[in-house]
């Protein structure tokens, strides 16, 4: 009985799979003509749109609007491509036509339901359709169950200069994601519009290091008042990631009051911090820290030695001379080779 069942089930599954495949083949055959026609319509519409951005002909505009409204799915996909090519005023005019044809409505609808892929594309696409309705739809999409959609909606909303509640729910969500690099984009947008909210995030020790350091990076880019004090307040953090972020942001900010922290970080217990501090020295051209960089050429960690060498090479003639001296004195020792290779790489990239 059991053995017969194995045979019958196998045979049944094989038959069902073959029948399904046959149906798919027939469907594909049927759709071939439709896909060809769609491709032709798409090409014609693309030509018309590109031509219209040049001429601005009213009759053509009406024809495009009609064509766009007849197949909003095709139009949406096409517009996403067109907006990659057409920029500025032409893009705005086309977007106005598309809004009149109902594409904005379609995107706002897509944003609320359907596959993640479509919701995500809609959240991105709505950047070209600024309106109160768009802001409202995006505001709702910030609460989307899928993080990508939520963060994209938040970024678009922020880019449209719309008011967005950077509320506890969104912060919690950002903090939960913890790791995604997408949060950098969201935080960069918020740093422009709601720096005080990010400031709260950075100082909140209960948040993850990831979100705190990403917020700090975003805030430093804005150069808001008090940023130096904020960075320096974190310099003794027990977290390696946080000290790395402090070194990175001091290197980016370049304020003289941060130099002593960078100097101290050159002898930090963690190699990641020494590495980032070396980079900061090179970036800011802190000549007085040259001798410490020379010491780091003998560091246990290869990355620290390498970044210290690179930083020395960025210190101008004094740094280059120091490296050349090391080549001459240390010869084929690891120290001499580090100096020689750094100089060779610098010559090649110059």
């Amino acid at each position, binding site marked *: 009985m059991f*053995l*017969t069942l*194995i*045979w019958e*089930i*196998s*045979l049944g*599954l*094989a038959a*069902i*799979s*073959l029948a*399904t*495949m*046959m149906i*798919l*083949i027939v469907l*594909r*055959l049927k759709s*071939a003509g439709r896909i060809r026609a769609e491709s032709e319509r798409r090409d014609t519409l693309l030509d018309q749109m590109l031509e219209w951005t040049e001429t601005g002909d009213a009759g053509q505009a009406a024809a495009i609007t009609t064509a766009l409204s007849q197949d909003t799915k095709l139009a949406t*996909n096409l517009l*996403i*491509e067109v907006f*990659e090519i057409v920029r500025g005023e032409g893009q705005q005019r086309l977007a106005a036509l598309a809004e009149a044809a109902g594409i904005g409505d379609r995107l706002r609808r897509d944003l609320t339901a359907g*596959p*993640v*892929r479509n919701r*995500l*594309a809609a959240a*991105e696409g709505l950047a070209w359709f600024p309106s109160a309705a768009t802001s409202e739809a995006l505001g709702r999409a910030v609460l989307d169950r899928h993080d*990508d959609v939520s963060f994209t909606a938040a970024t678009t909303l922020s880019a449209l200069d719309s008011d967005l509640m950077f509320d506890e729910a969104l912060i919690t969500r950002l903090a939960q994601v*913890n*790791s*995604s*690099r*997408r949060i*950098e*984009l969201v935080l960069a947008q918020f740093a422009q519009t709601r720096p005080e909210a990010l400031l709260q995030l950075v100082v909140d020790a209960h948040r993850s290091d*990831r979100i705190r350091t990403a917020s700090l990076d975003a805030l430093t880019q804005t150069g808001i008042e008090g940023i130096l004090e904020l960075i320096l307040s974190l310099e003794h953090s027990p977290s390696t990631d946080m000290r790395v972020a402090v070194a990175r942001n001091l290197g980016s900010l370049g304020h003289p009051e941060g130099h002593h922290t960078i100097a101290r970080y050159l002898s930090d217990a963690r190699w990641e911090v020494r590495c980032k501090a070396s980079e900061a020295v090179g970036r800011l051209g802190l000549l007085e820290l040259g001798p410490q960089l020379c010491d780091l050429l003998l560091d246990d960690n*290869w990355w620290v030695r*390498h970044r210290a*060498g690179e930083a020395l090479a960025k210190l101008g003639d004094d740094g280059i001379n120091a490296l050349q001296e090391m080549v001459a004195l240390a010869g084929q020792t690891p120290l001499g*080779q*580090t100096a*020689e*290779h*750094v100089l*060779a*790489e610098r010559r*090649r*990239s110059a």
Partner: protein
Amino acid sequence: MDLANFDIPMDAIVTSLLEIVLLIVISTGLLQNGLYVLQLVLAMRELATQRPEKRASLLWRRYAEISPPISLLVPAYNEEISIVDSLRSMLALNYPDFEVIAVNDGSKDGTLQAMIDGFGLMPILRHYTEVVPHEPVRGLYGSPQYPRLLVVDKGNGGKSDALNAGINLSRFPIFCAVDADSILESDALLRAVQPFIDDPTRTVAVGGTIRIANGCRIERGRVLSFGLPRNLLALFQTMEYLRAFLMARLAWSRLRTLTIISGAFGLFKRQTVIEVGGYSHRTVGEDMELVVKIHRHLRDRGQDYQIVFVPEPVCWTEAPESWRVLGRQRSRWQRGALETFFRHRDMLFRPRYGRIGLLGFGHVLVVDVLGPPIEVLGYLLVPMLWMLGLLSVEYLLAFLALTFVFGIFVSVASLILEEIELQRVPRVMDLVLLTGIAVIENFGYRQISNLWRLRGMWQFLRGVQGWGVMSRVGFRST
């Protein structure tokens, strides 16, 4: 069981033994097919929830700004004819920040000279440290015209050795191992890197799909249009790859039990690979060995991590078109799987290794270790016993169902997945042809494939080392 009535105890013993063997054959077949059904269901769910974005233009806008830099490592041994085209195609990849490190692994032909001539290379110095072992580097080459390209010339040490040299010389946090004779689609990196963007802390490795390029239109290292191979053997492999990648790897990826990322195309966090000592020498399955080493290391450390397969980034490779070469390749793959399995056998079913020990290694045990010999035993035993009248027709049908008929279901179902979710096969006639192949591969090819695997087992037991000759026709521009 319809066995004749035997009076003497010896016959009863033989009967019992045969019955046990038959039960083992049927049970293993059931277990194997059960695993395939599980894979199909999981792959279907994964594709339905994570449907890949088809519009390549959107990917750049979405990911370019936050994509981490990647070092492409390209080990090359005797690739004189194709290496320049391959590297040109890699240098033209659609990705914001990457470097290409081609490692000439002591080729006996003019591979190095072809690269020097093709890119106007000059000897250069580069600061690096040897964190993983490999044969000595003889020279480094670069060119101001191709600042992304670094060519490493080193003594011959095999693919693992060449990749280790590439790891030492790479500077970026993620490296991508690519075979020199493979072709990456222009947006492959942008697609493959997504898990590193979504979860950069936990993601340590990502694998992509390998597809057969035989029959495709290829020009200067780029696949211009899809086509099916004309060679029957390559067609069988097209189906096999579809099943292996779209079904098996996707399913195990969903369960976080992936034990292999193809050596032809895989992304790894550099630091993690360094922590496990880089690629292992003295194995022909260095790709599987690396992934298993990573699992072991991170599980031992109690670290939360993920190794992921993403179906849409595609790497095209040339399939062998001769029985002899394919047979050698399959025996080698089998040997590689067994080497890794027995080297890490203590991971099997051990609670410390969680689902990797249970499902990942359990799958290798059933499909790679026990599967081939038991199935071949069935081929020999079942028809013979049935013809001798010692076996009922029910047993025969069950065996046929498990080895032939169920195989048709699994292959066709993989094709259905491909057609519903990806639609990478553009012509209807090609779909029809592949459906036919999905059926006939179960009658002959599957059995020969099992014999190759048995040979691989035999080689493993005898301690055979090395890759053997892997001759290829080479991608021809059409």
